[in-house]
């Protein structure tokens, strides 16, 4: 890894990638010189063709994988990571699944139970505490997964296409609710998606990645303020932004 000069403290990003490359053992180059930064309290989405290294980006940010080259800086006390699958433990009830990460982090029991209750409330699953994952719909499982991470009150939140497997209506609802959480907790979010609408609706900036080996090719700033009404999806400005992102996606 090469060292780059530290940014001045006032502009310290929650998450910064500088010239990050990733070459797997089998020779696959997933990323070449990826640059990106997410400021504290900023919501950034990443779109890009399938297989361009989006998941790899998040795995490196979370420490699950190591970058082969470049510098990764994460300034965070607690990183949340939501996978594409809900990855719930099938033998645990909703309540016990939501409490899992807090349990692994040895959080005090009283505190944990309080936060679990709040998180379940936040994702609208009150009344389902005793249900097993098997008894939930895909959307509800994803809510449990979100709640599980929320319990740790992360200041950096990584999302790997969390709503990719859901139908359009459920996805939009969860988008609305995710923004509600974001406004409440103001974490720094790096959100991966296939859906251009989802990207524009959620984020302050949309990063477009090139095909493999991936790097950030273009950036679209979304000027809407938070909180965002669900109806902005139908505005002309929203459509124009989506068009712009789609255009970049076609060009890469």
């Amino acid at each position, binding site marked *: 890894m090469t060292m780059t000069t530290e940014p001045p403290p006032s502009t310290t990003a929650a998450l910064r990638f500088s010239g990050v490359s990733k070459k797997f053992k089998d020779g696959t180059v997933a990323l070449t010189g990826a640059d990106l930064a997410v400021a504290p309290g900023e919501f950034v989405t990443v779109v890009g063709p399938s297989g361009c290294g989006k998941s790899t980006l998040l795995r490196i940010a*979370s*420490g*699950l994988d190591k970058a082969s080259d470049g510098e990764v800086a994460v300034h965070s006390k607690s*990183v949340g*990571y939501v*996978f594409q*699958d809900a*990855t719930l*433990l*099938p*033998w645990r009830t909703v309540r016990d699944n939501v409490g*899992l*990460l807090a*349990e*692994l*982090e040895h959080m005090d029991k009283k505190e944990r139970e309080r936060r679990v209750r709040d998180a379940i409330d936040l994702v*609208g*699953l*009150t*009344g*389902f505490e005793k*249900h*097993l*994952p*098997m*008894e*939930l*719909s*895909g*959307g*509800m499982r994803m*809510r449990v997964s979100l709640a599980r991470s929320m319990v740790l009150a992360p200041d950096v939140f990584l999302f790997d296409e969390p709503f990719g497997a859901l*139908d359009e*209506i*459920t996805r939009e*609802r969860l988008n*609305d*609710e995710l*923004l*509600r959480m974001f406004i409440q907790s103001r974490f720094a979010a790096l959100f991966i998606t296939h859906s251009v609408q989802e990207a524009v609706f959620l984020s302050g900036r949309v990063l477009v990645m090139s095909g493999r080996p991936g790097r950030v090719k273009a950036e679209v700033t979304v000027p809407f303020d938070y*909180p965002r*009404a*669900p109806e902005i999806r139908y505005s002309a400005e929203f459509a124009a932004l989506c068009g712009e992102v789609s255009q970049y996606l076609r060009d890469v």
Partner: protein
Amino acid sequence: MTVDVDSAAAAPAVGPAPGEVVAPPTGAGVPGGRWARSRGALLNKFLLPFCVFALFVGGWYLVSGFALTRQQRFMLPLPHDVIRVGILDWSNFKVILEALRYTVIVTFVGLAISMVLGVLAAVLMSQAQWIESSLYPWAVVLQTVPILALTPVLSFFFGFALTSRTIVCVIIAFFPIVSNTLFGLQSVDRGMHELFTLHHTSRFTRLWKLQLPAALPAMFSGFRVAAGLSVIGAIVGEFFFKQGNAGLGTSLSVYSSRLEGERLWATTLVASLLGIAVFVFFGWLSRRVVGRWYQPKRG
């Protein structure tokens, strides 16, 4: 469920979307309702096995009644003779029940030891590839070694009675527990492992909170196979180690040498029933323990 009215203006009502409904309790929603379902279950669970049983008994009558002459019939007596002599004649049946007691003891002790050792061995093997590579082949060898070859050394160290029989039982029942448990421990979804990795989970916590619970269904199917095998193990053990209290295996070898077909087959029947009983018991236990969250996929 309550709807958060305050936030309803900014964001639509909290709660699952219209399409997201909790699965109905099993039974409802099936065409024809609960009755058709339980009738189907009844057919599958009892009627079909019974038909197979009837065919089997019919075949038995055919072989015994027509293929064998009266002089040869001691090999496979007619079913009703087996019942009459071996089971309805109390003086004979009492002996079989007495033998059953000792077989049951060896079966249960052997099975319990296999379960403990088998799960421990699997957990050990799951901890590192090199441990698995060095131990697993020997678990396979242990399963394939002819018991006959072990008789001298077992009898030298443990005598000709219950201890040696139990060891034979363990040798026979051990392997399916190891292989099933190991499979279960290793089949945990990669995503779940990574979730635990992200939170710097210790080996023990990972084992206790992730791998062992995930392995339970496989472990129980191992227990079930091993339960049947432990009956066989106990009987084989009694065949070779005949000192002390006689078990079903002891009786079998005596009746067989005396050409007492009826008592031989009655004893066999009792041994099979014991096997079925432990098998069914572990099926029930498995459903009790993991049935709530684990639903095997149907082909």
